[in-house]
C-alpha cells in the first residue's frame, strides 16, 4: 500500500510516498533529505509531534512559562498531555532549556522550559 504524506520536518514540505507492507514502511520516495525517510516511517507507524504549550507561573516575572517536549510524543497523547500541563504550576525561577518533568507522562520525553523566568 502506498501512503502519500507531506513531510513536516522543514518548510520545504516534501511530498512523500511511503510504501507500506504489514504496517511497516519498506520504502520512501520523494524525500529531499534523510529526515524525510525517518519522518515517513514514524508517520505511518506511530505519528508523533513535538508538543508546545504554556504552564502557569506563580510569583515569577512572566505569567506563563512556555514549554515543549524535547522529542515528539504520539499524537494520541497530545490532549492527555495538555490536561496534565494545565494542572501544573511553576514557582521556581528557571532558564530556557531547563527540565520541568523528566519522564513526562511516562513517554520517555522531557518537558522543558523554553524561556527564562525570574522572580
Amino acid at each position, binding site marked *: 500500500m502506498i501512503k502519500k*504524506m*507531506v*513531510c*513536516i*520536518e*522543514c*518548510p520545504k*514540505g516534501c511530498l512523500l510516498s511511503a510504501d507500506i507492507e504489514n504496517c511497516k514502511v519498506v520504502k520512501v520516495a520523494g524525500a529531499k533529505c534523510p529526515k524525510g525517510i525517518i519522518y515517513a516511517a514514524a508517520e505511518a507507524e506511530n505519528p508523533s*509531534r*513535538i*508538543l*508546545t*504549550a*504554556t504552564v*502557569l507561573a506563580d510569583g515569577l516575572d*512572566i*505569567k*506563563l512559562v*512556555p514549554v*515543549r517536549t524535547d522529542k515528539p510524543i504520539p*499524537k494520541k497523547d*497530545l*490532549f492527555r498531555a*495538555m490536561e496534565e500541563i494545565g494542572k501544573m504550576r511553576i514557582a521556581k525561577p528557571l532558564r*530556557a*532549556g531547563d527540565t520541568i518533568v523528566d519522564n513526562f507522562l511516562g513517554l520517555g520525553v522531557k518537558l522543558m522550559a*523554553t*524561556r*527564562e523566568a525570574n522572580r
Partner: protein
Amino acid sequence: MFKRDLVVVGGGPAGLAAAISAHENGVKDILLLERDQYLGGLLNQCIHTGFGLDYFKEILTGPEYADRFIQKIQAIPDIEIDLRSFVVRLEKDKTLTYLKPGGLHTVRPKALIMATGCREKTREMVHIPGTRPAGIFSAGLAQKLINIEGLLPGKEVVIIGSGDIGLIMARRFTLEGAKVKAIVEIQGSTRGLMRNMVQCVEDFDIPVYFSHKVLKVHGKDRVEKVSVAKVDRAMNEITGTAFDIPCDTVLVSVGLIPENELIEMAGVAIDKKTNSPVSREVNKTSVSGIFVCGNSFKVYDYVDSVTADSELAGKLAAEYIRNRR
C-alpha cells in the same frame, strides 16, 4: 540630550542581531531601545517550533531562538539596553525622543538602526462587512492573549485567512480546548506552509473552506455567527452558496505590514503600497545613516532571514560610523 554612536530601536530578533553585529564590527557605544518590558519581541509569543533551522541548524521554539540572542547581548557591557522605552519622535538629523518611566529623553546617534517590526492587517483593511461586536481579534493578538497573558479569547472560533499565524492559532485554540469551526480562505489554496496545513489543521480535522469568503459578521454585543459563501475566480460571491457558521470569535489572519511611521516622520521615503522604505539595497534608506532591518524593512517568511539581514545592517551601520570620522 545626549549622544551615542549607534541607537537601535527595537529589541526583537532584528534589533538584537543588528546590535550584536554592530558591536562585533567595532561599534562600542550602543543604546538599544525596546518598548516592551522584555527583549525578544514577537518571538516570545511564538511558542511553537519551526525557528532556527537555517541559522542554528536546530529546531527551536520562538522563545528559545530569542533566548540565544538575549543571553549574548546581555553579556556585552558596551550595549546599553533600555526597556519600556517608547520612541515618539524621530527627526531628520536622527534625534530621537523617547518616553521611559521617569521621563522624556532625547538622544542623537551618529547612525540609527530601526528594527521596529511589523503589525497585523486588520478587518477594516480587508473589508469584512457586518457589525462590530466583541470577539473579533487579529490572529497575533489572540496569540499574545493565549501565550503571554493566559487568556482564551473564545470557545468557538472562525479564522479568516490561511496564513501561517492563522493555522498555528487554529492548533493552539484546539489544544486549549476551544473548537475551531472553520478556516475561511478566499484563495484556492493555503497561503501558509504545507507543514502547517498538516500539523495544525489536518491533525485536528479542522474544516478549511478554500475559495470562500466571509460575507458578514453577525452579533450585537458578542459575535454570534458569520455568513460565508463560495467565490468565483474574480473572488465574487456565487449566489446560492451562502451558509452560516455559529461562533463566538472571529480571528483575522490576513497578513502583515511593516511599521515605519517613525522614519516617515524623519522624511525617509516610504513605498505607500508596501509600507517599506524605498530602497535599492537591503537595509538602506533614502537618508544616509538611517538603516532599517527585519520585518520593518520587508516582511520576511523566516526569522532566520531576519537575523541574517539584520547582521548585515549592523555591519553597514558600523561602516557608516567609521567612514564618518
